């Protein structure tokens, strides 16, 4: 899911603690800040800390002055050969190509398991908004191609695209059938997306805060942190990629439920909106001396069901004659590209 959806979910979970509302009414925002921050923290740990310390076996660094797709293809094939020959996990870094303050050279990598080749093609120059600069689409017609020593199995059928800011990391894991499994961003959701890490951080908070705010602040903070961190992990589990749920007790990611892609618009918006509704409901319950009264069902009808039906009907009416094809990506690819775009 997108960062904003996780963040709002964290705030919503924090609002379930009566202590959070009580503290807020007295001018103390700490539990809500903790909720939002822990809601987004697993991705923050990965994208802002861990990836800069992740070691790679092969760095593919194209020279911006002499762009050569064959060099890129050869280096990728070398990494594949290393993984196949040495039967070990190889971490491959595809470095981005910066051409100016706002311009990046895009390139795409495609594995073909029938022909046993990897092909690389330089695409257009794009700006930091990932929009192609007109007239640069066909500047480099040459295609780099190199033979592969082993099949590279991808979990989704897509090209690897490298353009703005940091380029992706690809993990090549040997399989029993002799092929290799391609993992996109292997450093993502490796240890940070674990329920146990949330509990650990909660304990850390409790140990520190017990001396500052006493026992109640310690356990209330622990519950807030563990729950808000955990909701991020649970939400990501609804997608395809899954998470390493019980690190360090579990080593691999548990596959997700495949209910959605992390970049899908509707689930993300619904998460944000439902979080807002839940926050509102919890604040209402905690508000003393209300003159207005309503039930949860009433709130859901007014804020979710009725607008949802109207929206659905409008959408049907407005899109009667059109069909819009939405490209489906991979969870990691969605998060990688959209976090870069949204956070700039």
């Amino acid at each position, binding site marked *: 899911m*997108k*960062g*904003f959806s996780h*963040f709002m979910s964290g*705030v919503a979970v924090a609002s379930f603690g009566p202590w959070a509302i009580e503290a*807020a*009414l007295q*001018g103390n*925002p700490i539990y*809500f*800040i903790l909720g*939002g*921050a822990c809601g*987004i923290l697993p991705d*923050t740990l990965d*994208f*802002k800390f861990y990836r*800069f*310390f*992740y*070691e*790679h076996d092969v*760095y593919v*660094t194209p020279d911006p002055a002499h762009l050569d797709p064959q060099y890129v293809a050869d280096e990728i094939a070398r990494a594949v050969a290393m993984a196949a020959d040495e039967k070990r996990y190889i971490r491959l870094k595809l*470095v*981005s190509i*910066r051409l100016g303050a706002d311009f990046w050279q895009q390139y795409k990598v495609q594995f073909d398991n029938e022909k046993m080749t990897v092909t690389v093609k330089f695409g257009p120059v794009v*700006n930091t*908004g990932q*929009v192609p*600069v007109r007239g640069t689409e066909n500047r480099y017609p040459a295609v780099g191609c190199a033979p592969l020593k082993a099949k590279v199995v991808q979990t989704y059928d897509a090209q690897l695209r490298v353009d703005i*800011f*940091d*380029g992706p990391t690809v993990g090549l894991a040997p399989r029993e059938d002799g092929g290799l499994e391609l993992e996109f961003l292997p450093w993502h959701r490796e240890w940070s997306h674990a329920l146990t890490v949330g509990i650990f951080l909660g304990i850390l908070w409790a140990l520190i805060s017990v001396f500052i705010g006493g026992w109640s602040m310690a356990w209330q903070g622990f519950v807030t942190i563990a729950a808000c961190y955990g909701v991020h992990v649970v939400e990501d589990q609804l997608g395809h990629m899954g998470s390493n749920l019980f690190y360090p007790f579990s080593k691999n990611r548990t596959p997700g439920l495949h209910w959605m892609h992390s*970049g899908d*618009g509707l689930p*993300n*918006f619904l998460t*944000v909106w439902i979080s807002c509704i839940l926050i*509102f409901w919890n*604040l*209402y319950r905690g*508000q003393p001396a*209300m*003159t207005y009264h309503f039930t949860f069902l009433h709130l859901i009808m007014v804020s979710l069901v009725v607008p949802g039906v109207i*929206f659905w009907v*409008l*959408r049907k009416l*407005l*899109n009667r004659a*059109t069909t*819009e094809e939405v490209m489906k990506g991979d969870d990691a690819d969605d998060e990688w*590209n*959209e*976090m*870069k*775009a*949204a*956070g*700039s």
Partner: protein
Amino acid sequence: MSSFWIVLLSVIGGTVLSSLLACLPGLHVYNVMGALVLLILGLEGTAYSIPADVFVPAMTGMVVGWAMLNTIPSVLLGTPDESALFTVLPGQKYLMAGRGYEGTMLTALGGLAGAFFLILVVAPCAPRYLPVAQQVLKGHMHWVLWVIITFMLMSEWPKGGNRGPAGWAKFYDAWKTLLAGLATFLLAGLLGFILLTRSPVDHTVAFQNIMPAFVGLFAIPWCLLNIISAADVPKQFIAKSLDVNGDVILRSVWSGGLGGGIAAYFPIVTGGVGGMLAGHATAQRDERIFIMGQGVSKFIYYVGSFMLLFVPGLYLTRGGGAWMIKTLYTPRGDADYFLVLGCISIAAAISYLMMSPLARATLWLIDRFNYRHVSSVALVIILAMVLLVTGWVGLFIAIVGTGIGLLPVLFGSRRLNCLGILLLPIACNMSGFGETITGWLGLT
């Protein structure tokens, strides 16, 4: 003349005036409205006193016209106010691709969609549900601000650290931009504490005391960047179609409505923050939705916050426009509410129709003159405006603001961090420890 014609002519006059003023870089509609308020107060009790039938519709028209058309200087001249901050980057990309007209018209279409949303969806529900919401949320405004600040600071993407082996050097390279962002936020917050506690601006223009800082933080750095980088604006094309379907409109309304709605309802959460939230709630891969969403968000922020003052049973004062009109007039009952809704509808239609000719005229100007010269003239107008309204002290504040506003430009961090000028001091004040901090700073 009957009341109908007085109201109609007033709203048309206000809309046309602000639509034209919106094309001038650096001038904010609230500056003009502030001057009008002083004029109206001055004429009160004389034979020339201006009745509410005239100034309420006129000011409504001014807010609407501004909300719709201030995209023109933001996108085409590169001089945004903070509410248009998120429109500028994709908007200028459109400009550099020869599609400046399309970019501005997409934002205007977003504004029009926002007007429909406000009038047909929000307005009928507002008197029934917003007073309830206000009762629930009234003790919780402070933490909403803190939560927004947290998200703003945590969601910035590290721009560096793209090359080289793993390790601390790479980490530091990446975090340079983030640290610059944090420094910008804190410095802007410090400036905010000073201006909100002991403003050096003369008390006669006290309601404009934050204006020079905003101009310095947001508009001047952009002008300087345009002048220094001296980018050649390519020939602009007038698109025959905006390639927008119902799905794009609906998705823009849902993201922009959420961002703009939050900005309109919560105090100090400005249009820039609304734009950021709208951007995060949008599918980033479709720039049309992003740009239209920004148009929706901006319109709902300006006009929606103004409208809240007139909602029966609520009468909530949010945004500069509402605060100014409140000094002149206290809204009463349904009649005023319907009057303002009618004025918003008329003004939205007129200002949308004015968008195309005014955008074409500005593009003609850019085409005829060097973009660097246009930006230079824009900078001179901005500085003159600051000097005229707030004097030399204001100009000094603008220079200080420019210093802070240039940090994101130099380090490539997020410009929205400049909003620390309002967010930090007000959040501290609302949580009850603002005075402690101003005490530490020696301000109180």
